[in-house]
């Protein structure tokens, strides 16, 4: 009797799990549908424009854009920018992407389809360059120009990618330093009694984009501090200490830059790193170089509560967005954050593709990054680049 009950219970839970699975998949499909629809609309819009656009403005070229997918709202914003540029230039775009960033084979297929349509140019954000090499060679042989975007096509054969539209992460880190400096860091540094500490939270010391965002910030802060006639020293994670432009290591500077990297990427360890910085009395600023670090700043501050924009508060600077970071900016828990510009990225890839198709010389475009604060977060040109 009891045995039957247990078996029944188990079966029920298994069925339950399956149902949960189905429910989730249902959700997935809906997302896919919307994205496909949006993508189709993009194509249609472009086509309509090309039809009505008899004016000499556009040549009506067909541009194929193969992205990494639509999982992230980031990509919706890229699509929006691409559509805007297509309309402006009078070309047709077809914007596609796999269901997830692990569906490499799907992307290869999409890239192949794009080539088979003999477009005027192709925009490509590669998931796996290796898997796309055959297609890249074929496109080159057929004289179809390829433009990289987002993280581009790393390690592609020389000359195969004519230009890239991507974020210059080092410059984005410098932007965070410059804006933060003017908005309050300078006052704290110049008016300090004794040395002050600027904390940098990094998710890891391996990803190029994260390292560059960190180094851009560190080097720029150092330049600004030295311009005031003060000294800088750096301590913490070896990779950052070695690669930064700061000469002096240790705790000896008027401004001490301390870089913390957790031994594993977990919410808890990053939050403890944040608390380590908050617990040092001389800390005046903390910069988190990606969404994970920005969220760890919020978690770590929850019990210590030193972040803010008041005179005695520790200033917080984040990178990218997401629901938590956007809320922290609105609440003025963070003084500001840097966002990449996916809309500009979408515009740039189409502009570069069209220019390349028309035989013009193209070169890499830094699609830029923007500084945003509680005051500017709702400006349309900022808000379009933020996601949950």
């Amino acid at each position, binding site marked *: 009797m*009891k*045995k039957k009950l*247990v078996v029944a*219970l*188990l079966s029920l*839970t*298994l069925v*339950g*799990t399956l149902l*949960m*699975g189905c429910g*989730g*998949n249902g*959700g*997935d499909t809906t*997302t896919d549908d919307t994205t496909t629809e949006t993508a189709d609309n993009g194509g249609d819009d472009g086509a309509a424009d090309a039809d009505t656009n008899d004016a000499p403005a556009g040549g009506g070229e067909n541009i194929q854009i193969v992205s990494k997918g639509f*999982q*992230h709202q980031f990509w919706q914003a890229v699509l929006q920018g691409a559509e805007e540029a297509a309309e402006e230039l009078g070309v047709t775009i077809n914007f596609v992407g796999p269901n*997830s*960033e*692990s569906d490499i084979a799907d992307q290869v297929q999409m890239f192949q389809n794009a080539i088979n349509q003999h477009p005027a140019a192709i925009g490509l954000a590669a998931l796996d360059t290796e898997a796309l090499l055959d297609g890249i060679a074929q496109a080159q042989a057929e004289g179809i120009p390829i433009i990289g975007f987002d993280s581009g096509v790393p390690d592609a054969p020389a000359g195969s990618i004519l230009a890239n539209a991507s974020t210059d992460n080092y410059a984005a880190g410098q932007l965070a330093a410059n804006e933060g400096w003017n908005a309050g860091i300078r006052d704290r540094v110049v008016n300090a009694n004794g040395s002050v500490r600027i904390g940098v939270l990094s998710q890891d010391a391996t990803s190029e984009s994260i390292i560059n965002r960190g180094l851009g910030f560190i080097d720029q802060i150092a330049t600004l501090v030295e311009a005031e006639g003060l000294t800088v020293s750096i301590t913490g994670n070896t990779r950052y200490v070695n690669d930064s432009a700061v000469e002096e290591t240790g705790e000896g500077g008027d401004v001490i830059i301390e870089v*913390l*990297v*957790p*031994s*594993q*990427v*977990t*919410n*808890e*360890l990053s*939050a*403890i*790193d944040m*608390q*380590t910085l908050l*617990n*040092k*009395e001389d800390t005046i600023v903390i910069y988190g170089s990606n*969404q*994970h670090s920005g*969220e*760890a700043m*919020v*978690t770590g501050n*929850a*019990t*210590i*509560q030193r972040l803010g924009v008041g005179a005695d508060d520790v200033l917080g600077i984040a990178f990218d967005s*997401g*629901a*938590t970071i956007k*809320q922290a900016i609105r*609440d003025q828990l963070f003084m500001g954050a840097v966002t990449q510009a996916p809309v500009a990225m979408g515009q740039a890839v189409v502009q570069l593709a069209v220019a390349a198709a028309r035989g013009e010389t193209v070169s890499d475009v830094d699609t830029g990054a923007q500084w945003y604060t509680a005051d500017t977060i709702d400006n349309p040109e900022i808000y379009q680049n933020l996601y*949950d």
Partner: protein
Amino acid sequence: MGAGVKKGNAFTNNPIVKTVGTQKIVVIGVIIFLAIFFSWMSPAFRQYSTVVSIFDFSYYVSLMAIGVTFPLITGGVDLSIGTGMVAAGLFAGNLVNQQNLPVGLALLVCILFGVALGCLNAFSVAKLNLPPFIATLSSMMIARGLGSILVGGMSVTWPAGATEQGWFRSIFRLDANGTLIPVGFILILALVIVMSVFLNHSRPGRYIISVGSNKEAARLSGIHVAKWHALAYIISGFFTGLAGVAYAATFQGIVPGTGAGLELDAIAGVIIGGTSMKGGYGTIGGTLLGVFVMSLLKTGLPFIGLQANWQQIITGIVLIIAVFIDVTRNAKK
């Protein structure tokens, strides 16, 4: 402390020591030592916010650890609790964000997800007779993959504390006019008491212990071994779901594909707390104390300038000592 243990009869016959248990006295001693040591080394450690932080980061580990004590007592293990906790938090949080599910219901879904995972483990271990290590290693992978699929690979952020749906965050940390009260600790204590009574004074609890101490003897004495063996994993699953709630309440974004490795923190806590890896012996109170040793090390070491990597080395050493005590005890028996 070592001398204290060796006092022999006078020490072990002390009524307090008898009720609390020798290993637990040692662990309590370690906790007091660590607290004094860190306070002495770092003035910044001596702050109320540090206490709240230690509690804050201990809840999800404590809950996983209370649950996994049961499979460990049966001589098994549950490796799926880390990725299972993250998957539960992802799935339920996604329902709040995408389907507008009320948070109260989502918390229930989170717990049920854990129970379902526990049932899967129970089925593999008690019904299919798979070795617990393999069975739960498999479900650990399944939970990791399933969590990602269910949310389409995107990270999930449960509602923020300040929002209407964010009330669940005060289950563990109450903000009373600026003073933070770690109410989660009271909840955890209550659960420890309930589960201790269940383990030591209820028939199912005693049966679970007997499965771990001598499976064959238990079977021969007419105990339905498979049933109670299964129950241990279902309890572990239930607490995995509860840990998912605590994890969602403490942290911001939950990222798909994470969680692997967190189960080892919980298991280490259980072992430090005196539960035998061989099964047949363990206490819930000891588990909580073991988790606190881990939490104190994690939070305290950065205060004395020892960063992340050192903390793992020291935790490893503490674990070796704890297991050594366990081995010595078994040898004496």
